[in-house]
């Protein structure tokens, strides 16, 4: 049906959404309204489905929607629907890591985080888009095509958990799970104006997370505010005998950390992070955020993390080396894609491996598998991989030393705001350098959170990163919540016109 007056129509639609739709609210708000009986779980699910129908054809946050969402069991303790990155296994669901090589893979088990969410009654909305195997910082390396930033549809949502971040920012999810190997939760959270936490390595079980780099990967929450982040971490954290790298460290109630108080804290500002190449608008926003926390009583101190300039190099050796090993399992033997060339030799299995992997992996996956294979190959192992592991020790020691002088560290999450779709595709190195502020936390295993701290003149969100010592997520929540109480960035919403009115 052709409409002449699109503006009037979109105004009407936005109004009607505001009046009847609960999807703009935080999970905590929904939970308290469910508890006091002012809304029903069924109306929450219905609202969310409507928002997804209105918006996802423009945002493209999801690669797969649960067709039974509105029929979900909503009798559980926390019946608030959640989006799951397409690399976390859900029994009976297709999981692909946004890769052609896993098309048709149906998981036969639940990841531990999924089992925990199901026990609390969270319905699953669907699988969120991502860079293939989490290789990327823009969600452009997906076999399903890119996700669009809800704040500006011509721009990337960041990556690799770009679908999860965009879904939360566009109110197409109350909350979401992502995974972070070098910044893949925090950078998209910053680009989309939401809260993203990478927990301490070992805090959350990786059982059922399809592996990228096993010594760096960690599952974490993407949420609309800090309270929801704490609440979701409560649900997923803890020791799991099925993940030998999960840590047997007690899990506190993280929502208890949401006090409005930082007066006794010293926060470090690393000299090495405030470098040329940082967008002046990002710098300005971080300075302003520091002033807010100062006004709440925090002390700030310049610190040094001297090995910061080597973090990107170290990361790309270690992460690709681990990735090429983890991705060796995609060979066409057991599941997913299998390609056998017509001209196969008699011992066709090797031809099958090589053909399947050529047809199934995208360009960036091939690049990383090749880089990792090279770094591990005979004659280069010592020069690249072993050297990378040694520099990793130095980067970790930088943080160990920093904690002698400060309780937490504040940096930008990313040197720039979201870039245009296509802008960095031709130059993989420039894409890698966009992770410069986030990867050190993965290399040293420490927790880090990104929270909204402003907007560029173009209207794109800016993210503030807070890092802390291992297993000190409560401290990050405390600082982030205190800041959040003093500002309103996290309450701003993108002015998305429902795509149904643009068609």
């Amino acid at each position: 049906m052709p409409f002449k007056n699109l503006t009037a129509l979109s105004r009407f639609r936005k109004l009607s959404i505001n009046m009847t739709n609960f999807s703009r609210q935080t999970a905590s708000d929904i939970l308290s309204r469910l508890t006091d009986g002012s809304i029903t779980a069924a109306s929450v699910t219905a609202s969310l489905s409507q928002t997804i129908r209105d918006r996802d054809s423009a945002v493209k946050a999801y690669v797969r929607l649960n067709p039974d969402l509105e029929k979900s069991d909503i009798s559980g303790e926390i019946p608030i629907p959640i989006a799951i990155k397409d690399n976390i296994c859900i029994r009976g669901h297709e999981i692909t890591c946004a890769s052609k090589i896993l098309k048709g893979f149906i998981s036969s088990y639940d990841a531990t985080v999924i089992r925990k969410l199901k026990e609390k009654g969270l319905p699953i909305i669907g699988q969120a888009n991502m860079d293939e195997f989490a290789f990327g910082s823009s969600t452009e390396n997906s076999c399903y095509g890119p996700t669009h930033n809800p704040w500006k549809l011509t721009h990337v949502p960041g990556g690799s958990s770009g679908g999860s971040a965009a879904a939360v920012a566009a109110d197409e999810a109350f909350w979401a799970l992502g995974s972070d190997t070098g910044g893949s939760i925090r950078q998209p959270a910053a680009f989309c104006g939401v809260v993203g936490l990478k927990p301490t390595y070992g805090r959350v079980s990786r059982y059922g997370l399809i592996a990228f780099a096993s010594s760096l990967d960690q599952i974490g929450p993407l949420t609309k505010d800090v309270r929801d982040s704490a609440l979701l971490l409560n649900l997923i954290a803890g020791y799991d005998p099925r993940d030998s790298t999960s840590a047997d460290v007690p899990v506190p109630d993280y929502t208890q950390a949401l006090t409005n108080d930082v007066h006794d804290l010293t926060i470090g500002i690393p000299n090495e992070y405030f470098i040329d190449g940082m967008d002046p608008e990002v710098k300005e926003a971080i300075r302003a955020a520091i002033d807010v926390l100062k006004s709440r009583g925090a002390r700030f101190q310049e610190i040094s993390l001297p090995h910061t300039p080597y973090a990107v190099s170290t990361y790309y050796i270690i992460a690709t080396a681990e990735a090429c090993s983890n991705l060796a399992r995609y060979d066409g033997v057991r599941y997913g894609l299998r390609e056998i060339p017509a001209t196969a030799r008699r011992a066709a299995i090797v031809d099958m491996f090589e053909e399947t992997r050529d047809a199934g992996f995208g360009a960036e996956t091939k690049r990383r598998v090749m880089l990792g294979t090279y770094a591990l190959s005979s004659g280069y192992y010592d020069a690249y991989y072993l050297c990378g592991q040694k520099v990793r020790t130095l980067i970790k020691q930088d943080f160990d030393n920093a904690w002698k002088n400060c309780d937490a560290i504040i940096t930008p999450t990313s040197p720039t705001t979201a870039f245009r779709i296509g802008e960095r595709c031709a130059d993989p190195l420039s894409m890698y350098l966009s992770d410069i502020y986030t990867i050190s936390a993965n290399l040293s295993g420490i927790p880090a959170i990104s929270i909204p701290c402003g907007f560029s003149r173009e209207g794109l969100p800016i993210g503030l990163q807070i890092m802390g010592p291992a297993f000190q997520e409560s401290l990050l929540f405390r600082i982030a919540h205190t800041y959040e109480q003093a500002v309103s960035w996290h309450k701003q919403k993108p002015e998305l016109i429902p795509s149904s009115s643009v068609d």
Partner: protein
Amino acid sequence: MFSYEHNTIKKMITQDDVNYIAGLARINLSPEESQPLAQDLERILDYIRQLEGVDVSEVQPTSHVLSLKNVYRDDIPVPSLAQEEALSIAVQKLNGSFKVPQIID
């Protein structure tokens, strides 16, 4: 085919290197794919070679941030995935196994 010069890695990635690595990685790259890959890898490795400037002579490698060693569970049998279920998404199966093309000449 690989050589060091004065203990540093001063070597450009050649097309032959790319083909050799692709063989190790079991990827059948087409010529259209392997040519830009040589340039991409060279640029990335050129950046990574900055690590040559770090003195790591006295440094122990970190393979893992948690100091975990030999995490064992008690040797108690528990039910595992049923064979039928494990094979339910097999590309091809035969007599309770995954079926693959011929593996020996």
